[in-house]
């Protein structure tokens, strides 16, 4: 294929990591979902089988910290990819490869923010509810 956009070849190399996948923007919400399932399943089994609740809770809080760090890392990468500081373009509405690249960064960044908030919400009961009752 020939090309009339001179920068396109460079884009292709630069943005090749997302050439075939939309899944990257779902990493942060998937981490949220995984965290949710672990919390729910582990607590359910703990309550059903009478395992030691405080230990499980401590473990879950540790996992939560890891998950928040993971989402934070994804968010930071996405922020870099969005690159709004340099381009000043919040909207990325044009049909060029770099707009798409920045847009996916933007979407992934926003999803990381919402995922951190989601994890925060889910962790609240671990702080406020002391046992199985």
């Amino acid at each position, binding site marked *: *294929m020939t090309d009339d956009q001179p920068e396109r070849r460079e884009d292709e190399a630069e943005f090749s990591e997302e050439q075939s996948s*939309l899944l990257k923007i779902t990493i942060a919400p998937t981490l949220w979902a995984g965290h949710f399932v672990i919390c729910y399943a582990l607590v359910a089994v703990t309550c059903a089988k009478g395992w030691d609740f405080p230990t499980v809770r401590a473990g879950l809080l540790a996992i939560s910290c890891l998950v928040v760090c993971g989402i934070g890392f994804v968010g930071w990468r996405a922020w870099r990819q969005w690159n709004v500081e340099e381009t000043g373009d919040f909207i990325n509405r044009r049909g060029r490869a770099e707009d798409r690249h920045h847009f996916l960064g933007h979407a992934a960044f926003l999803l990381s923010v919402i995922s951190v*908030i989601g994890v925060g919400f889910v962790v609240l009961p671990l702080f406020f509810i002391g046992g199985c009752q």
Partner: protein
Amino acid sequence: MRKSGLPEPTGPYPPTEAMLAEPVPDDVQRAQEDRLRKVWETPKGWRYWSAVNNSEVGKWYCLTALAFMLLAGVMALVIRLQLIVPENDLISADRFNQLFTMHGSAMMFLFAVPMFEAISILLLPGMLGARDMPFPRLSAFGYWCFLIGGVFVIGSIFFDVAPRAGWFMYPPLATKDPGPGSDIWLLGLSFIEVASIAAAVELIVGTLKCRPPGMRVNIMPLYAWYVLVVGGMILFAFPPLIAGDFLFELERSFNWPFFDPTRGGDPMLWQHLFWIFGHPEVYIIFLPSIAIAAMVIPTVARRPIFGYSWIVLSAVGTGFLSFGLWVHHMFTTGLPSISLGFFSAASEAVVIPTGIQIFAFLATLMVGRVKMTLPMLWISGALAIFTMGGLTGVMLALAPFDFQAHDTYFIVAHLHYTLFGGMVFPVIAGVYYFFPFIQKKKLSDRLGKWAFWLTFTGFNLTFLPMHLTGLWGMPRRVYTYPTGLGWDGLNMISTVGAFIVAAGFGVFVWDLIRPKKDQPQIERNPWDAGTLEWSHDIPEEAWGVRSIPHVTTRYPLWDQPDMAARMDAGRYYLPDAEEGKRETLITSVIDATPVQVQRVTGPAWITLAAAGFTGGAFIFPTFHMYPPAIVCGAFAVVCILYWLWTSTARPPEADAKDVGLGLKLPTYAAGPSSVGWWAMWITMLGDATAFASLVFGFFFYWTAQPDFPPEGALHAVPGLVALAAMGFAAGWGLTVCARHLNRGGAVMAARLCLGLSSLAVAGGATALIGSVTPLNPEAHVYPATLWALAIWIAVHVGAGVIMLLYCLAGSIFGKLTPRYDADIWNVTLYWHFVTISALVVCAILGLAPGAL
């Protein structure tokens, strides 16, 4: 991986301005138009019903869903009439139970979800500038399944045998219910769910692979984003219910005690599986309807949507978070309060992305120059009502409040506010907005306003008082109530309101179906919208788009002013149909660069026959008539095989063709670049979810029941389980070998592998069933669960063996060659999934007795 030797795309891309500006001679244009018109012609006379084009199937689908909705609405009116005064005896308690069960079931399964799919099938190709969806016969098959299943389920009410245990079919009420009612619900709706999943696969692949060249993911219409998210949600939400239905029907038909606590079962498992489906379902309904708002609002505001990325965030975010809410339907079932806490928290969190969407819409309206059109009127009504439903949703997400309001009319009010605001009003807005696109006529402004104000006032009159009725303690689902509890007046108001809503719907439906022969045809793009569907031809043409444009902006009709004229002139891609075949363009997932010309299938009766037999396979068991069901199932398989054999992945007459503007694209694809492979991948994702739900069931019993497995229970025969595992592993290896050997040209060796592979897996399945044969599934839930897992795998292996033999036959009769090998790619993909599930089951059967 060895290349198949198929050509790569060649020629200039993207097209330059000079190339696009080059005129096409008039006679060439006319000849092209004639050929296209002939190829895409809608069949005439009685053959009309063999049509598979998205514009026809979409219309039938919408009208059928509307008809079911109206029937369910009439049921609601009877319910309201019964409740108009205390101690009323208009209908019997049993009839009342049937009515509310069918009202909920029909509205959910026969209206809300199918309506989304119907609208998407109708509109999506237009928005994406595609000629049709990638698998038109699959949409037609889905539609006919829906029609047959829907008529069967809703028809039961006329024979006084309708399901009557509530639309969520809680056991033991539903499992112990005598008569065929519960079976009708289970089998009829399972059948429809299969159709829904088929449509979801079609829509996801359509959105990912059938966008016009240049429509990268950051400029595709928001509706397409919502379709992707909702399609994905259907794949993860519906299968748990199918797994639940499978267990439920095994209990109903064969007395296997999955939900019977006296033999180790647990009704709570049904509630989990049902609501893992049921809560995301609410968002599956809500998101596409709100997507309609996302299409209407920029048009009326005369500016691009504000915060495109934010809306994508909220669509994707809501899609994920909505899966963390299912237990808020089960707050009063006695779960540990910390579990309730997680779900309460997630229920509150989902408000954030939902709110973001609403604010993005409001912001767009505030910064735009709003022209108050009829669709906008309905959208405003929707926003008002949905916000109100959202507020009570926040209240109900708080567990202590929910304990109080649980199963009262407060819930009825809340759910109708969210569903009317989140679904019904936006969909009606969409009907007014898109009617000129669908029928090339406009609906009446005057009637539309009447319909709106009647519906809006009537709705609030009906459901606003119910908040109070509920808070004052009136339970749901009671067929009458004593006087003197303060509910009389409120119920009277609600009933009057319900009839005003009905009058509103009457006006709307009349406007929709009244003859419009004398009405002038509309001008093109009557709302002056910016998205691609409004480039449609007036008068109507069945070819979708005259030529598939190169899109570089979010609102191409606003920002690429020459586009429509160039599309009409056949200046863009695929302006012709020289070979007399229906075709559309396949592009890459992220950047929408053209990769292939896809042949799409034309009118056929076989889809109807396949749907009829599939219907028989589901409907006969309702009446415990198993032999005819098996015969129907066999015929359905034959029909589907015939349809695949004759019209999918056939070797093309030429490897590549010129699609216009000097671009030459391959006409055949196999593996990850083909749409069939994507469809298989996506279907298997759903299938794997259903399987995971069964496995979840096993571990659920383990946590919830102290006697799982019971003391001294028999376990699966370990030797046979090991043999089964070896059979599956060998079969999988041979299948992968067959694919490699075939591509490498060793056709005979590939055939040998295919044959051996089917023997190995069939042996594996036999050993697996043999391993559980000594167990008595009626005695306890432990052997029943092992049996269910083994059956699940055996059925999948059976389908997989048919696929292997299909490839073998394809190889022998020249359908499958080393160069054209899409079938074997898809079958291998299927086997990756089935092998993993089979080995997991072997592990559970073989290892669990020692581990638990």
